[in-house]
């Protein structure tokens, strides 16, 4: 957001967004380091809310959570296209930024949906339900609401191992937490913290998963498309 502000403040024309420290210098270019400025970012956000629908701002936020290198460029491009146009351009799929942002949104939202599906809680002795995830994109902020609504009467933790932070719900509200694995050793000794019948339900679930399969209709390609291998390490039925 701050970057967009700078672009307009300095009347820049050709801009390329790069992560810090990756600028390698090219002919006729200058480097400008952007430090997030809450105030300026807020002004840009306000401007955006005036030009596009709030669902559109939500979509931009989702696209931003993709956190793919270089993908900040279409997002900045999109925002500039918003500000440079009189009318609302959200549906202009002929424009490459609009189209790319809609692709990013689709990727992130698919990942969000997958996480809502593939999270497997394990019940611990203190009645907390614990799950680890390793999503491609930073989707925890997006799935928060779903899990808060659904599991309102149980304590739960969802921990993103790749980004080393998690969500904790204590029956009243959800907080962002970080766990120190070296001390607690949660990751390795999780089994020792299981509540007594956790094991039974895991076995029952695996049995169920095996028996709903119709062997004569086996279609492994489709199976893999729905449940890519990278998620298997956190899926009870695939362990």
């Amino acid at each position, binding site marked *: 957001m701050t970057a967009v502000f700078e672009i307009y403040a300095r009347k820049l024309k050709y801009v390329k967004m790069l992560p810090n420290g990756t600028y390698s210098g090219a002919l006729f270019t200058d480097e400008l380091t952007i430090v997030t400025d809450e105030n300026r970012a807020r002004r840009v956000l306000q401007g955006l809310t005036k030009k596009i629908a709030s669902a559109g701002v939500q979509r931009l936020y989702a696209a931003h959570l993709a956190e793919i290198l270089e993908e900040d460029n279409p997002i900045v491009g999109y925002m500039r296209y918003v500000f440079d146009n009189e009318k609302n*351009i959200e549906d*202009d*799929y002929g424009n490459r930024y609009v189209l790319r942002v809609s692709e990013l949104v689709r990727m992130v939202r698919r990942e969000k949906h997958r996480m809502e599906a593939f999270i497997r809680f394990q*019940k611990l002795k203190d009645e907390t339900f614990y799950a680890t995830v390793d999503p491609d994109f930073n989707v925890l902020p997006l799935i928060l609401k779903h899990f808060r609504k*659904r599991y*309102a009467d149980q304590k739960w933790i969802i921990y993103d191992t790749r980004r080393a932070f998690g969500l904790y719900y204590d029956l009243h509200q959800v907080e962002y937490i970080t766990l120190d694995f070296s001390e607690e050793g949660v990751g390795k000794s999780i089994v020792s913290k299981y509540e007594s019948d956790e094991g039974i339900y895991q076995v029952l679930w695996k049995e169920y*998963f095996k028996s709903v399969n119709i062997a004569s209709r086996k*279609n492994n390609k489709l199976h893999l498309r729905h449940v890519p291998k990278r998620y298997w390490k956190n899926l009870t039925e695939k362990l």
Partner: protein
Amino acid sequence: MADAAKYDVSCASSGSKRKNENKGLGNASNGICHTYTEDGRCVSLLKILLTNHCIFDCAYCVSRKSNDIKRAAFTVQEVVDLTINFYRRNYIEGLFLSSGIFKDADFTMERLVRVAKKLRTEHNFNGYIHLKSIPGASDELMQEAGLYADRLSVNLEMPTEEGLKLLAPDKNREDMIKPMHYLKNQLILRTEEKKLFKKAPLFAPAGQSTQMVIGATPENDHHILFTANHFYKSFNMKRVYYSGYVPISNDKRLPGLNTAVPMVRENRLYQADWLMRFYGFKVNEIVNDSVPHLDLDIDPKLSWAIRNMQLFPVDINKADLQVILRIPGIGVQSAQKIVKARLFSKLNWENLKQIGVAINRARYFITCSSNAFERRDLTGTNIKQFILAESQSKYLKNKPAQLSLF
């Protein structure tokens, strides 16, 4: 017990809008598939039979009376515990409960309803519940079931009455239709009530559905789709499911044990079903007396377009949404994007490709903002050959023939 229930096809957990109130457990508003079996089907609900004891002898069913298998039954409490514990671990969206027939319809139905009641009232469970209604159950029980379940379904089993008589002599179609009628009327009544009083109780908010086995009897696609259409129209069905017959018995009345499951045919039927529900096609445009079977090589929309070449080419930048929806290679989402995007600028091939249109099929049927378009005067058969030549069907290896010989 899941072993027998797996042949039930419905897995939908969507279409309801039960909210979590008073910090209870769960909600049912969106469909989530929690995992997928190795045959590629979605697992969203805990799909089980209360029992596989059954007094009926339907030739196509694994739980039939004459089949020599181990019989067992769950208690109501067991099903409840299993559901709650699976749900808390985020394994499932809810429960799909069906059953063999214990003594008579009411006795069995009463048990199914008790499971749902216990989940809702004692455990404050707001997840999805799909109850299979037992043909012949009383109206009072159906009424109670509707109060606790999100969706109710009655299996039609066979597309026609003759098929049913042949394979399931104990069942009769009248018993199946009756609860459907009752449900339909109740659903309409309750929606009216809901309009007047916001707090009126939910009654099966996800509606009713049904399923039929295909490929076990010699009905053609014409019969099947007309039956399906009839149920969508006159019973307000949310879904009709088609289940390709999986050979499980060497009964003389059925296809032999080594016949392949008619997977392509099942797929084509679902495609046709979608065309009727989302693309504005009428059933007699897809199949009719002169075209009784769906084409197994190509999808039903393409095959409709080839039969109606006089309607094409269509100008993407001018045509109505309804017309664009009928172009092969363009789905509902692409069609909507096209209609929105063309307000900003005229679309060319590159734009269409990026929007997600399958150009290899669509290009024979459209013109857009470009000088390049199909100039040859191709016949439908030509187009079919061109498209088949450049696409690789994943099914080509073992193509099961449709039962058109009888």
